[in-house]
């Protein structure tokens, strides 16, 4: 009897593939996304819709242009994951074209210019984010107060008009709808020479601050944390990168907090405000652009934490996750080069 013998061992392969991994990743994102929706309204949903559809169309188009197989590549869902991460990072009131431009840049410049999935040195979502961050700084401030304390929360129709037609609801101005995020607010507060302890007396900031780390934000981050832990439990992500990121950020913020608690935010505020948990468990762990060696992953995560703290504290932008991730993406090959683990039997040798 003749057989087809073209295959090499092993003759056992896992049944699931990349798309299942991505699906689980998307699943883990849902609690955070729902929390975002709860606190920031329909804008989040519109962002997601615009980003996902743009991503899929752009990916299909570029695959066609590159004469690659389209259907299976689209089905690996990596473009959808990129789109979701990006949409959740953008401000909820972002106009549709902002999300579109960001997603286009993420897929075209961040992913396919480098050869598509697996070959992009930078996290595509963060590439897209940074492009719009430096191009449209005004629109990137279109955050709003969390619904729990927002007297002017927008309904579906108002959000729709705002996102797609840039129409403000009657009798409302931009300044009455949009609001600085907590980190931005605190940065302003400090730059005016105020002390952190005076936050409570500042009517607006005090309101924003909530219990722990910003009204709404603390819950969103806890949801992302839960999703991330679930991913870790299912062995979808490596624990080293989140650990490195969270510990370096905590350590740095604790250090400065202990030095001067009036000028530097507490570790808990740092960890649970902005997109830290999203970054730690979903963005920094993108395996393609991260370091791959075990030690390298800890360094990679820690580096992101350090850069986030530096940019938050002394940089020009209120939050620095995207820049921090991209900077460490750049360093990943170098880190890999110097952290090759000792092969079996090489431990005693130099």
């Amino acid at each position: 009897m003749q057989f087809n013998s073209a295959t090499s061992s092993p003759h056992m392969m896992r049944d699931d593939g990349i798309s299942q991994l991505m699906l689980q990743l998307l699943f883990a994102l849902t609690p955070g996304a729902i929390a975002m929706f709860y606190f920031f309204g329909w804008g989040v949903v519109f962002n997601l819709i615009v980003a996902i559809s743009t991503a899929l169309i752009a990916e299909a188009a570029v695959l066609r242009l590159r004469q690659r197989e389209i259907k299976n590549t689209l089905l690996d869902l990596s473009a959808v994951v990129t789109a979701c991460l990006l949409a959740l990072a953008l401000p909820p009131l972002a106009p549709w074209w902002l999300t579109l431009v960001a997603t286009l840049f993420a897929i075209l410049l961040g992913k396919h210019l480098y050869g598509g999935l697996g070959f992009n040195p930078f996290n595509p979502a963060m590439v897209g984010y940074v492009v719009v961050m430096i191009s449209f700084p005004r629109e990137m401030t279109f955050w709003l107060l969390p619904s729990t304390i927002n007297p002017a929360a927008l309904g579906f129709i108002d959000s729709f008009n705002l996102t797609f037609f840039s129409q403000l609801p009657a009798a409302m101005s931009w300044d009455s709808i949009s609001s600085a995020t907590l980190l931005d607010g605190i940065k302003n507060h400090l730059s005016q020479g105020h002390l952190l302890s005076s936050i409570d007396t500042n009517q607006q900031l005090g309101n924003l601050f909530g219990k722990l780390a910003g009204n709404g934000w603390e819950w969103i981050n806890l949801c992302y944390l839960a999703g991330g832990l679930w991913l870790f439990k299912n062995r979808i992500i490596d624990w080293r990168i989140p650990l490195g990121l969270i510990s370096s950020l905590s350590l740095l913020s604790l250090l400065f907090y202990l030095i001067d608690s009036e000028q530097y935010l507490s570790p808990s505020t740092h960890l649970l405000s902005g997109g830290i948990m999203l970054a730690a468990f979903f963005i920094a762990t993108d395996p393609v652009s991260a370091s791959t060696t075990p030690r390298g992953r800890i360094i990679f995560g820690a580096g992101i934490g350090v850069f986030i703290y530096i940019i938050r504290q002394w940089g020009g932008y209120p939050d620095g996750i995207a820049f921090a991730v991209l900077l460490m993406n750049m360093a990943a090959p170098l880190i890999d080069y110097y952290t090759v683990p000792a092969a079996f039997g090489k431990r005693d040798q130099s």
Partner: protein
Amino acid sequence: MSADYQKISQDGLWTNNVALVQLLGLCPLLAVTGTFINGLGLGLATLLTLILSNASVSAIRHWVRPEIRIPVFVLIIASIVTIIEMLMHAWVPGLYNILGIFIPLIVTNCSIIARAESFAAKNPVLPSVIDGFMMGAGFLLVLVVLGGLRELIGFGTLLDHSYLMFGETARSWTLSFADGYRGFLLAVLPPGAFIGLGLLIAGKNYIELRKTKHQTVKLQPVIENSSTA
């Protein structure tokens, strides 16, 4: 001889373009091409430098010993650039202020010493001048195209600030395209320069690729004819 000049021109403008193929002089290229006029200004300055330096290097090529070749070339180029800088400061101060440090930096533009080394030092004056002109023109072209592109995408205008170079009458030259265009800052910022240059290079390669494909297709029937004949 005319074929030679044709080759020199083709080299400078396209096949061996300083910016798109040799990738030389990228520092000023990327830094000043925020607008069309900036690109034009630096391009003209570089073009002038290239012509003059090629001419003088070629003229003195027989008298310079190899061991001091480079210092002499650098001296010549530095002198020319300094003179051009002073002239610009005197006559187009607005542009001078914008281009700032990049005019003296022309000295370190590798394309100039590269042309001096690889062409002017081996050829008579006239071809050298032509070569300088064509290389400079090729560089100028890229500067202008990139500047124009970035200005167009970044601000939605073209030829803005022309008055810096052409005087007050040029104030009205500014072309504005979409009203209420918010601007796409990335294009104006340094990353935009890199992306823009990358796209230009890709575009050039694409055209070349098309050309060679076209040629092979064209060649086919000729071979067939010969075989059937």
